[in-house]
């Protein structure tokens, strides 16, 4: 069951968790845009470090590190691809300066990717799905969309557990998943997929029935038990967003050319 445990959501409370998801999302977007606007290592490193206080205040260091480790492979891939293409066009560098000029942009690209992953993971690690669903409900998105989202979150762990049971049931009937060649192995999954799909369909019908019985679609404009209100933390983050935006625009327009590069130190 271990691999599915991560899919279960839990209510956690921290100043970061309590921030309105919509504002947190805008923050992520701003970081995203900033990261794209710069290719130098220095600003990207600053953007990277800026997330750390969030991680620590929300106490999600462990999960955060895990997500970074997960991204490390792709990051390494980006780095290598960049280096290889540069080698291909420019040939083997002969001086230290040339080496730096080759490595730096590759490193920048990699850093940019890491900043993106980092900010999105901070967002998802500190936003409980029910809060996110609520934010969706209260934004202008159609309610069906928000409902689909929360129901998905609600049933992912249920389906994951069911998949595990189905796998056990078929193994108990002698199915060996990792037997045979590639084609056979794919075919091995048919006895697992069919019951899973059939049960998902049955479930969705039962859900629809229960929804109908609870007056789904009675009025055009649904109301909501909860109301999202902005708190101190939300305003603080709005302040930070404005600040980051201003600094980014300023730096990008006026000091972009004079941002020091690694190679300038040589």
């Amino acid at each position: 069951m271990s691999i599915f445990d991560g899919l279960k959501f839990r209510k956690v409370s921290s100043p970061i968790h309590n921030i309105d998801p919509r504002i947190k999302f805008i923050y992520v977007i701003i970081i995203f845009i900033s990261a794209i606007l710069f290719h130098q290592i220095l600003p990207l490193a600053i953007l990277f470090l800026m997330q750390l206080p969030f991680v620590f205040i929300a106490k999600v260091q462990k999960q955060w590190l895990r997500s970074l480790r997960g991204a490390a492979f792709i990051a390494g891939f980006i780095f290598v691809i960049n280096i290889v293409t540069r080698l291909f066009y420019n040939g083997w560098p002969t001086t230290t300066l040339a080496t730096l000029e080759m490595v730096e942009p590759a490193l920048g690209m990699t850093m940019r990717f890491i900043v993106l992953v980092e900010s999105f993971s901070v967002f998802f690690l500190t936003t409980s799905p029910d809060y996110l669903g609520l934010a969706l409900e209260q934004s202008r998105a159609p309610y069906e969309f928000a409902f689909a989202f929360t129901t998905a979150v609600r049933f992912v762990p249920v389906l994951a557990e069911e998949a595990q049971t189905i796998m056990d049931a078929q193994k108990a009937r002698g199915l060996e998943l990792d037997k045979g060649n590639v084609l056979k192995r794919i075919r091995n999954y048919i006895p697992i997929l069919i019951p899973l799909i059939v049960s998902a369909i049955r479930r969705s019908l039962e859900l629809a029935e229960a929804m109908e019985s609870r007056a789904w679609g009675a009025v055009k404009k649904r109301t909501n038990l909860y109301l999202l209100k902005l708190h101190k933390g939300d305003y603080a983050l709005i302040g930070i967003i404005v600040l980051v935006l201003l600094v980014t625009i300023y730096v990008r327009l006026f000091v972009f050319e004079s941002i020091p590069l690694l190679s300038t130190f040589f």
Partner: protein
Amino acid sequence: MITVENVHYSYANNVEALKGISLTINDGDFIAIMGQNGAGKTTFIKHFNGLLKPSSGFVRVNGVETTKTSVATLARNVGFVFQNPDNQLFSESVEDEIAFALKNFGFDKETITKRVTWALEFLSLTQYRKTSPFLLSGGERKRVALASVLAWDPETLVLDEPTIGQDYEQKEKLRHFILQLRTKKKTVVMVTHDVEFVAECNPRVILMCNGQIVADGIAKDILTNSKLLEESSIVLPQIAQIFTKLSILGLPSDIIDIDEAENTILTKAKERRLK
């Protein structure tokens, strides 16, 4: 024969589900494992065919340690029927569904046909041979799942909550069916909440609580021990409820069978010349 020696099992999230279980299941035994949700019953039985392997301790099936072999090999001896038939049915016809395991185990064509025919007959499903299992009723689907396991004739049959969602008649059928298996000297282990069903089947009862076995004995002793059952949130069987109240008359309180109940009361009535 299944021997379990001081088995501990912890899930990946460090929850210890089994805390030192030892048990011997002899050939031909009929056992009901009871206990409240989270007592570790399902975790325990999944050790019998190697779906779970002990974190420490041993489970041996016919002398072979489950850690040293595969689920597929163990399954030949230990057939496992899951609670919900819909978690395994996938074939186009009942016949194919029953043949699935036989093919996995590498039986030849002729034997497969023979075994399928036998299993269909045994569970009175012959008329549905070519029907899609998805078109059958809940009780019938449950029987197909059972047939698909029985087909390879395992020595031991493990049933997880066989009576859940079943009506009275279906439970009666199941009970007769288990009796038939017993006459064939099969070992039957079932996990269930259904005290009434256990009282009617009269097996050896193993009571689990918090990952440990807290009682092991004949149904009559365990199902009439109200203190023990209460700790496991199990209700006394209906007949036992009556006799617990009647014990102040000097009647025995360890009665779960309706015929025994009738005779005991009639004797008492005769004593009092009420008849």
